[in-house]
């Protein structure tokens, strides 16, 4: 194989696949995807449920079918792939060190890198779940891999902690394969996944969801024998007298995702403590010139369609950088989180970018507003540069606003932009 590429993409989930396609379509000749698994597609391959592609294709596809669409394209474009390969290190000068069984130690130099490692699941330790440490405590995604890909059931009688989408989808999946789901517990007073999943995965199958309730203790020395559930107050403190022992053999955790950025850090990429992902500009380039990031490695998305789109932007940026069309970028202004906004991605905007194409901003609200809201982008003087009406704003669903070329003039005068979401 070659040891010199224009663009190398690390990870072949939806972000990585899109980045590879865009890099090819924007003039990068030698494009390589490095994937640690034995096939392309990433976590989509275990997400066999429908619900993918509604925004991008107006089609309701299962995860593997969504992935295959892009895998075909990647193959057709002549993107090279290196499977079953783990990247060990990346330098700021864009040398990649990786290993696999066949080739041994691999050293690759590249014009640009797109980080597309996705995210990982929060574990029992990160939520400090007390009790014993038996077999039978799994993250929902690990269970999903076992049931859907490896072909094994991780247990028969489940309690699921967290009402995240993967947790609810697994509740349905396990039920269909003959297991019992005793309960889904959610520590927050509201659902953390999509309403659609609550209806079609829990309500449909008569699976009980209890809000403001959590697991207080795991019981069992060898295998999980039961969990103790407890109600919590607004500060997440257990309320005495509300304990219930629920017999079960498995506890699934669906308690959040964290962008996977250990490699990014090795390369000198700076991370935003709010998103846990890199600071990126409107081309999804990080602070390290030539190192881009796309998808859940930047921030945890709610819909795969947006991950694909981010991959396109990053892949295009990476191709331009590799072809030296993009010199050290300048003319950036910061994009800031304003009223009821936890974060904005990208973190900064190249003012000239809007002359060429629109730039999509994505935000998460801090608290839910269950009535009509207005999302505004304001300059340093409070002048509205762009706005968008929405029926509601919820922390679980990403807010999206496109900065269109029409806003070009207004943006040229700005020294910073702030995004807000307010009741109308």
């Amino acid at each position, binding site marked *: 194989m070659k040891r010199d590429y224009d663009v190398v993409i690390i990870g072949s989930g939806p972000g990585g696949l899109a980045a590879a396609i865009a890099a090819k379509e924007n003039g990068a000749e030698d494009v390589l995807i490095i994937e640690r698994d034995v*096939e392309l597609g990433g976590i989509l391959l275990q997400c*066999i449920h429908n619900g993918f592609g509604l925004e991008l294709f107006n089609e309701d596809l299962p995860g593997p*079918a969504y992935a295959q669409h892009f895998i075909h394209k990647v193959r057709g474009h002549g993107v090279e792939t290196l499977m079953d390969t783990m990247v060990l290190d990346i330098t700021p000068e864009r040398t990649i060190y990786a290993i696999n069984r066949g080739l041994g130690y691999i050293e690759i130099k590249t014009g640009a890198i797109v980080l597309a490692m996705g995210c990982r699941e929060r574990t029992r330790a990160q939520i400090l779940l007390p009790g014993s440490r038996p077999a039978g405590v799994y993250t929902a995604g690990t269970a999903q891999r076992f049931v*859907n890909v490896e*072909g094994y059931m991780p247990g028969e009688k489940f309690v699921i902690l967290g009402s995240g989408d993967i947790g609810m989808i697994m509740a349905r999946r396990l039920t269909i394969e003959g297991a019992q789901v005793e309960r889904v517990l959610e520590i927050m007073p509201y659902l953390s996944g*999509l309403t659609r999943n609550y*209806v*079609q995965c829990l*309500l449909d199958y008569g699976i009980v969801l209890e809000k403001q309730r959590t697991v207080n203790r795991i019981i069992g020395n060898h295998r999980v024998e039961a969990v103790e559930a407890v109600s919590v107050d607004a500060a997440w403190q257990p309320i005495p007298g509300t304990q219930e022992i629920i017999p079960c053999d498995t506890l699934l955790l669906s308690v959040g995702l964290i962008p996977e950025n250990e490699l990014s850090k090795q390369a000198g990429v700076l991370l935003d403590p709010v998103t846990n992902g890199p600071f990126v500009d409107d081309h999804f380039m990080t602070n390290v010139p030539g190192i881009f990031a796309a998808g859940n490695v930047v921030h945890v998305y709610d819909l795969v369609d947006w991950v694909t789109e981010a991959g396109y932007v990053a892949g295009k940026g990476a191709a331009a950088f590799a072809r030296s069309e993009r010199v050290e970028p300048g003319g950036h202004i910061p994009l800031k989180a304003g009223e009821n906004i936890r974060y904005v991605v990208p973190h900064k905007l190249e003012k000239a970018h809007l002359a060429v194409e629109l730039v999509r901003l994505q935000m998460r609200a801090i608290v839910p507003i269950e009535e009509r809201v207005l999302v505004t982008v304001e300059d340093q003087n409070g002048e509205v540069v762009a706005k968008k009406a929405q029926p509601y704003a919820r922390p679980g669903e990403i807010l999206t606003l496109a900065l269109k070329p029409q806003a070009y003039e207004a943006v040229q005068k700005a020294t910073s932009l702030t995004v807000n979401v307010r009741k109308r």
Partner: protein
Amino acid sequence: MVEISEIICVTCPQGCLLKVKHEGSQVLEVLESGCKRGKEYAISELQDPRRMVASTVKVKGGLHPLVPVYTSKSFPKLLIPNLAKKLREIEVQAPVKINQVVLQNALGTGIDIITSRDMPAERKVNRKW
């Protein structure tokens, strides 16, 4: 018996609570509908509830032991348990192509069950774990 049922609409992510007056599956009146699409949803939920169903079937000689499948159209909700049982009996031979029909006219619904990905035959080079 005339009843008033509450249904959570999943037509869009908002998830409005709909109220429907009905007698059995006969809809008498949609009392609260959120929007026009909500009204249609409420009626279909009472008269003929359907879901997209995704599962897996066994595959012989494949990279993985299972291949994911789904219903080519929305499938009658009450037939899901029987469909789940039926799918456990099916085994296909690798290699499998995407959109391959693994069960035609499932349970007489006229709906096919199709694969959602290619499943290559097992090869030494991509021996999995």
